[in-house]
């Protein structure tokens, strides 16, 4: 507020009361703190992991081996998270491929098919599923899903072993990317469903009605109005799920066999992801290896942050359109 020229009648220029200036300062600093934290996370991981990036350069991202060599001599160490990154992407990809159709079905069912009473029950169940701790998904995946998946895998491999992704020469199934991906798909299903439900629910009612009025069936209205309308929101929700799957630690740790080789055979008992690498190696890491884990954490942070920022933009845009 600027000072006014002195005119008739007399002016007084007021600033906000002191309490309000204090109030606004406190609130602003509190709000900006969360931004500071975000910057600090990136800064500190970069600071701690810098030496690793200097020593290995791009090879840290692409290298398959994670070998500390002689603990006394850091120059003998070979650290690379290539295999783990591939594992992260592979399991997350499997998770999304499995979860997406079910999430779409659940969202459509809840919004357009379900009787009212079942709708509230299903919504609550799915929301609760999002709140179930990942360690419980992990223990359940290990105890219940693992034997099932193992026997399914045998059957699938026996019949489809001409497909390179499916073939498992070692005949060892168990804790495979498929199992981890399947478990992750259950964990991200509620996330994708709730975003999909929101965008499908916002589909313009008048267009849906218009399509009925023209003699369309319910499925016709959904296919021609609801699905196209919700496409970008669905993409955003899927990416949110992808971000969650990429960063999951414990559930993957418990259901995936950590092996430092790039493995595309989704039924074979070998794989890993960046997050479970950190959890696995953290306990007895040498100081140099610890820096490697920090660098791995930074890569994971950068990837998930990018995915999430993109997802946020997409979801927000689809909301604005609605």
């Amino acid at each position, binding site marked *: 507020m*600027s000072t006014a*020229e002195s005119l008739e*009648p007399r*002016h*007084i*220029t*007021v600033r906000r*009361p002191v309490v309000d200036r204090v109030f606004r300062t406190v609130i602003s600093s509190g709000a900006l703190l969360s931004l500071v934290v975000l910057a600090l996370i990136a800064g500190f991981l970069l600071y701690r992991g810098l030496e690793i990036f200097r020593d290995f350069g791009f090879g840290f991202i692409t290298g398959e081996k994670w070998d500390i060599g002689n603990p006394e001599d850091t120059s003998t160490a070979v650290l690379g998270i290539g295999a783990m990154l591939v594992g992260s992407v592979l399991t997350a990809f499997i998770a999304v491929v499995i979860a997406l159709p079910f999430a779409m079905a659940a969202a459509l069912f809840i919004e357009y098919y379900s009787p009212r009473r079942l709708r509230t029950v299903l919504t609550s169940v799915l929301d609760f599923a999002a709140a179930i701790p990942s360690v419980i998904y992990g223990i359940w995946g290990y105890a219940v899903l693992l034997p099932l998946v193992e026997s399914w895998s045998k059957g699938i491999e026996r019949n489809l072993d001409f497909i390179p992704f499916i073939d498992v020469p070692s005949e060892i199934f168990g804790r495979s990317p498929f199992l981890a991906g399947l478990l992750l798909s259950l964990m991200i299903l509620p996330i994708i469903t709730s975003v999909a439900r929101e965008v499908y629910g916002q589909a313009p009612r008048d267009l849906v009605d218009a399509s009925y009025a023209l003699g369309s069936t319910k499925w016709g209205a959904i296919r021609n109005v609801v699905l196209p309308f919700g496409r970008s929101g669905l993409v955003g929700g899927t990416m949110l799920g992808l971000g969650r799957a990429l960063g999951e630690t414990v559930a993957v740790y418990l259901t995936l066999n950590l092996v430092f080789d790039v493995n595309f055979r989704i039924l074979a008992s070998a794989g890993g992801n960046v997050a479970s690498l950190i959890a696995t190696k953290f306990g007895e890491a040498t100081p140099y290896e610890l820096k490697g884990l920090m660098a791995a954490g930074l890569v994971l942070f950068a990837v998930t942050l990018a995915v999430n920022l993109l997802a946020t933009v997409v979801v927000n845009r689809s909301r604005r359109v609605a």
Partner: protein
Amino acid sequence: MDGDELTLSVHGSIGRGSFAREVSLDVVAGVPVGLVGPNGSGKSTLLHTVAGLERMRSGSVVLDGTVVDDGSTFLEPGERRCVVMFQDLRLFPDMSVERNVEFGPRCHGAPRAEARDRAVAALDAVGAAHLASRMPGTLSGGEKQRVALARALVTNPRVILLDEPFAAVDSDSRPALRELLAAALSAPGLHAVVVSHDPEDLRGLASVTVSFA
């Protein structure tokens, strides 16, 4: 503008978008002014501008010789001693009646005991002393109106702005309320503006009626 020490004058353009209007209004203390106009004619915008909830687009609001809003100067609502009795009353739902009435004096720095005394007196003056401990949600329309009036008057305002004061009141309680309001608005030194879409509402309340279109 003749520098009259006891005039509220609003000259210039107010409101935004479809509510934008040119206004020119002078209110002399002790002479309540009625504003009549159809819905959407900008009456509420004018009240908000005088109270400091909205800014003038251009022009000025001058109260008792002091510029309170002219584009470069803006006095916060709290400093204007200018209260509004909203059409929908807006009693705070989570405070008791007494707390609602205390709220104004507390805002102006009165200690709790003094604020309570003033609230009790104000409630008494509008015949609502017995409602002090009730919650707003349990009151009838007429009772709420009395509480809202007490909440407005307790701050000893220089300006009181009433927006459709009879909107939420059934016809049986109107005469009593009208009498109460008429007495309140004629307080010395008080500028009063009463807004209604129905000229009949202003009978007995406003000495001057301005048509707003």
